[in-house]
């Protein structure tokens, strides 16, 4: 075993950013699930709302990708 404590903390931090991915997963699943339940109630209105669906998914996903960004910064920039 070798290496310093700073590197250890760095890797632990990178691993912890994976929790952010779980949050994004919940968010994206929430968007898609609510879209589906709405779409099944009124299928004729669903086709016009796919753009909104993707925008909502993109915004929910962006927060998860920020955690990926933090991981990248910790790995390669710190």
């Amino acid at each position: 075993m070798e290496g310093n404590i700073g590197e250890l903390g760095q890797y632990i931090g990178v691993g912890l950013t994976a929790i952010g991915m779980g949050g994004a997963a919940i968010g994206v699943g929430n968007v898609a699930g609510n879209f589906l339940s709405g779409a099944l109630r009124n299928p004729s209105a669903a086709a016009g709302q796919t753009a909104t669906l993707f925008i909502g998914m993109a915004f929910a996903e962006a927060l998860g990708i920020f955690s990926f960004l933090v991981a990248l910064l910790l790995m390669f920039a710190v």
Partner: protein
Amino acid sequence: MATEAHGEATGLSFHPMDQFIVRPLFSDGPVHWYTPTNVTLWLAAIVLATLALLVLGTRGRAIVPNRSQSMAEMAYGMIHKMVGDIAGKDGLKYFPYIMTLFMFVVFANFLGLLPMAFTVTSHIAVTGVLALAVFLTVTIIGFVKNGTHFLDLFWVRSAPLAIRPVLAVIEVISYFVRPLSLSIRLAGNMIAGHAVIKVFAGFAALILINPGLGALVTPVSILAVVGMYAFEILVAFIQAYVFTILTCVYLKDALHPSH
């Protein structure tokens, strides 16, 4: 990213991140700004593929389109409808730019899925330039079209006066985080998907080292590679679509800043 040599006699003979290394095409020397690299090669391939679809594909101008012409017409029609629906009729003036963005990103993503290919959009240097161009364009259009009324985007008049300063701070942050999220979303999705495929591909070689465990792991990981690849085809299109649709949303904000 990973620059040091990887791989041993046994085990993973390639690194999952090796596919993102920028290499010179004709020599092993250092990479300057003028060096032809694999990025140059695949950027040229994207331009040629776009030209092949949009120029050669529609050359017949048939009333009943053949396959490539109807592909080109579908892409054109989809983006035209998207710009019209989201940015409004006055946004259609900027349709050529948004169509260019979409064709570039979608071909970069799809050509990157070819085996041994280089995914141009997996580099934040590429997606960052695209996102910054969108951000600057939209900001300039906003100020040119609306003057100082563009700042109404940050000062939400429909909200009670007491919470407007708080909303202004949030709106300013969310405005300036746009190029960051736009570029990282595309690059992150591409890096993550391709790295996962390569990780599973690395597991698939286990049968060569350990036949007992490999008989169990190798079929599963080959199935996983196939599944992930199919999923990545979907992701490649959806990310191009999302990039374009968010550009349209930002354009709508610039053209009609009042909430």
